[in-house]
């Protein structure tokens, strides 16, 4: 136990207080310099100066888009309007991503503080946190935090005796992934169906109640107080040339240390998976890591050493997304994985535009045909052509990125698609003649008695009866069972 804090790969900015302070006690937050960034901002900085700090920090949207936050603030700030709004997008919806929830549950004040600072910078006096109704604990803690911030005068009129006033309200989502898209989110905030609208006009010009509106995601906001206090130079020193700071990833799937990690931009996936994540469960073979959720793609062994940032991850065929990172091992079927994501997107499509409403459905159906062994080689062409069109012509980000899981896996694992298309994929288990020692263990565990063979003789699986339960695979002491 000599070194408790070792030279670590992780560096936590957004998660700096998570797990270290009591989220329901504002004093715990104040103790770690909470609201100091706000005090400094209001006492010493002009709105322009705040925007400049954020711009110079080169902080980019952590919700996945990667748009420079300072520029977004500036665009909203320069609009003339009697009212403007700050919205925090806490409608985290990627299956397999939960960093925003963790921040809101562990450090809600950092988001509130950042929203007040943003309000001051762009000239808004009202903010909303749009949060998933499925996050009751986060909602509770935010509500408590807002109350406490009000009682300390951090929300309300004349904050820190400046003339600046700001109020904050929670708005609940109701289970629609598409509401992560900012125009859909704004519609939802107004009590409407969460259908996106065409951009332009951008929310910075016409957003909530048709007023200039700035929407940032939870993790983006959580970076702001640190940037204000420590300065843009400090932030610029972390990360890569075009992506500064850190990124939180939700590490899950076939990995030993499932959890949240925050690493400087530019960390390699190998470090994340093997050093922080502790490698693959049961020491199986790594196959790919899926990033960016339903908008992203897969990254394979050959790119594990690429330093990850917004650009590089796109260059190797995936997306940063909100930071879901699902590790897949040799057992995972990539066509099934794309089917899983397409099932998700076609279900979450708002139904407004043709390519997404019908296109994602047809993409899913083609994948279903393939995995049901009812597809054909022509289906592969159709799949690629349609995927490209859905990407090209959908109205919003959901549709435009929905085909990514297909395009990426078909690029990397075409042979798996072909096995389905040419119907050469085996769906049952088999026994490797060279390895079988005739121990009979497999035939004894088989629930449908489809394995036959004499003791010390090579055993055979009757494929017609095999239900692919995998019992034999687990029972075999010599690895002689071949998986489907």
């Amino acid at each position, binding site marked *: 136990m000599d070194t408790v804090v070792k030279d670590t790969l992780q560096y936590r900015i957004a998660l700096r207080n998570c797990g270290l302070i009591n989220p329901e006690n504002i004093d715990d937050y104040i103790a770690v310099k909470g609201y100091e960034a706000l005090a400094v901002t209001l006492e010493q900085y002009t709105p322009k100066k705040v925007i400049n700090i954020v711009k110079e920090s080169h902080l980019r949207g952590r919700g996945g888009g990667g748009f420079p936050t300072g520029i977004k603030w500036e665009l909203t700030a320069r609009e003339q309007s009697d009212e403007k709004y700050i919205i925090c997008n806490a409608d985290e919806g990627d299956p397999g991503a939960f960093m925003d929830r963790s921040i809101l549950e562990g450090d809600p004040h950092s988001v509130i503080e950042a929203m007040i600072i943003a309000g001051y910078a762009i000239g808004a006096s009202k903010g909303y946190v749009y949060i998933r109704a499925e996050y009751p604990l986060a909602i509770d803690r935010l509500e408590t935090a807002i109350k406490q911030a009000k009682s300390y005068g951090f929300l309300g009129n004349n904050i820190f005796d400046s003339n600046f006033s700001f109020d904050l309200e929670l708005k609940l989502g109701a289970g*629609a992934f598409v509401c992560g898209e900012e125009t859909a989110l704004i519609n939802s905030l107004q009590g409407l*169906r969460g*259908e996106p609208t*065409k951009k*332009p006009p951008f929310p910075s010009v016409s957003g909530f109640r048709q007023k200039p509106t700035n929407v940032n995601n939870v993790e983006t906001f959580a970076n702001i107080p640190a940037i204000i206090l420590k300065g843009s130079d400090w932030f610029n020193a972390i990360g890569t040339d075009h992506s500064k700071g850190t990124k939180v990833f939700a590490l899950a799937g076939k990995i030993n240390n499932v959890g949240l990690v925050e690493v400087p931009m530019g960390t390699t996936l190998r470090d994340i998976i093997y050093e922080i994540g502790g490698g693959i469960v049961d020491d199986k073979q790594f196959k790919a890591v899926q990033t960016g959720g339903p908008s992203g793609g897969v990254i394979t062994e050959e790119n594990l050493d690429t330093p990850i940032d917004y650009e590089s991850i796109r260059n190797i065929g995936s997306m940063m997304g909100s930071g879901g990172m699902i590790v897949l091992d040799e057992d995972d079927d990539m066509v099934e994985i794309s089917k899983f994501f397409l099932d998700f997107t*076609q*279900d*979450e*499509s*708002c*139904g*407004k*535009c*043709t*390519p997404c*409403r*019908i*296109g*994602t*459905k*047809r993409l899913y*159906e083609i994948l279903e045909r393939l995995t049901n062994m009812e597809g054909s080689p022509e289906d592969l062409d*159709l799949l690629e*052509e*349609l995927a490209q*069109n859905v*990407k*090209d*012509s*959908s*109205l919003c980000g959901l549709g*435009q990125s929905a085909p990514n899981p297909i395009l990426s896996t078909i690029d990397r694992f075409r042979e798996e698609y072909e096995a389905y298309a040419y119907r050469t994929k085996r769906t049952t288990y088999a026994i490797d003649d060279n390895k079988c020692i005739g121990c009979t263990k497999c035939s004894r565990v088989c629930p449908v008695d489809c394995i036959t063979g004499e003791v010390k003789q090579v055993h055979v699986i009757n494929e017609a009866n095999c239900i692919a339960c995998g019992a034999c695979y687990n029972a075999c002491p010599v690895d002689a069972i071949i998986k489907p």
Partner: protein
Amino acid sequence: MNTLNIHVNGRPMMVKKGITVLEACHQAGIKIPTLCHLNLEEYGIVNKVASCRICVVEIENRATLVPSCAEKVYEGMHIKSDSLRAINARRNNLELLLSNHPFECLTCTKNLTCELQSLAEELNIRDISFTGKKMDYPIDHSSEAIVKDPNKCVMCRRCETMCNDVQTVGVLSGLRRGFDAVVAPAFNLDMLETSCTYCGQCVAVCPTGALTERNDVPRVWKRLSNKNYHMVVQVAPAVRVALGEMFGMAPGSISTGKIVTALRRLGFDAVFDTNFGADLTIMEEARELVHRIEEGGTLPMLTSCCPAWVKFIEHQFPDMLDVPSTCKSPQTMVGAIAKTYYAEKVNLPSKQIKVVSIMPCVAKKAESARPELSKENLHHVDYTLSTREFGHMIKEAGIEFEALPDGDFDNILGESTGAAAIFGTTGGVIEAATRTAYELLTGDPLEHIDFEELRGLEGVREATVTIGDLDLKIGIAHGLGNARKLLEDIKAGKADYHAIEIMACPGGCIGGGGQPYHHGDMSIIKARQKAIYDIDKNTPRRKSHENEMVLKLYQDYLGDPYGEKAHDLLHTCYTKGERI
């Protein structure tokens, strides 16, 4: 700077600031197909949901394709409308729509007038690459007026825009999401169970056969073939200025005489004019107005000719049912008189007479079926056909409409004045009533018959007409959204009008839900309106109370206008409804 420099397919051009890419391409002589787009800018209605993705084009430096109908041009924009990427996307998206569409073109009401069908032809679709699940919703035949087949819906949302934003009826909304998304009433109720006014504006803008008027043509053919019935037909004022469009005639062509001849050839026994009913309506309505002014009755008085509007107030403002005039509409007045006075004249029992109405309207179908618009269990009107359905009958009969000689309406219920003609346009009913009310109130002959201040196409208009020592304050609204504004003002005590005219459809009956499709071309509405005023100008008598046959009807049969018998036959009542 009001102009911008852009490039379209490599060619530089100068265009006006504020126009869309679609308009810019159009100016460059390039046609880009559209589907969901609908531009009724002069009514303030633009459907820019950009949802069909048929009109996509490529814009330089833009990662994805862009819907040309909703994208504004900017300085230095490079538009590529003919790139393979754009062309493929359009075809691909259309194929997707078709892969979820019933292939019933041959028997579809919209056969050859369907925008989706034309698009399939235009984009040369011969095979559809995709197969899969199709929508499978029940067809809604519940109402007397509108048939809704959700399986033909392409989610263009035009109907929703009309129903919610323009008409503020709010019956239709997108329901569910993803592939299951559909435009429907709440809880997917049948139309009959909703507060639908049957104004038919959804039908008028639906690009496919998802929303159509109920087809009553077969029933009419059947009755015509049955010689036991005496078939009476009447034609509304707005039909005669629009029907010609279905036969290649210019918008605004007046085809009254041809219509009469066509109806005779189709086998009708008597061809009457709804305009006669319009004059009759004014006789009653002008007196009701004078009565309400002189006796301190409820003011303002609202006109009641438009059945969609009547349904609107019943469901949306059920506590205000004392404001509309109790006068029946012209079509039902003609029906009531045909089955009583006329029946006596031709010595036939009422039940042997069948009345068919040719109307620019979808709601008139539902109006005819209202139980209170009947006498002795016989509906005043038995069948109502839209202008479009009538046009189809003429075509079916092989009649060369353009070549028909002019005919005259049959006597008794055939004569009409210019005041009746203008019932077909917004402002017309109230102008007609004013002409008569003026003479009723002052006893002096009206010199300036044309009340220009009541005309036009603005959504809400108001005017004050001096009649003797009374300043008669008049309000006019067309489109139910505008009507709502007026009603809310009245409710809030903010409006001090004496009389208000409301028509449910934009432009009035000339823009009715049953008229030949104008596909949002405002010049067509304007031409129809001009024709209406031309008819008025060229009619020898221009005040309803000068209609000799109407006067004779009172003398022979009804007694005093607004009297007891007139009340029995020509007035009605309203029923409170729910807003669903």
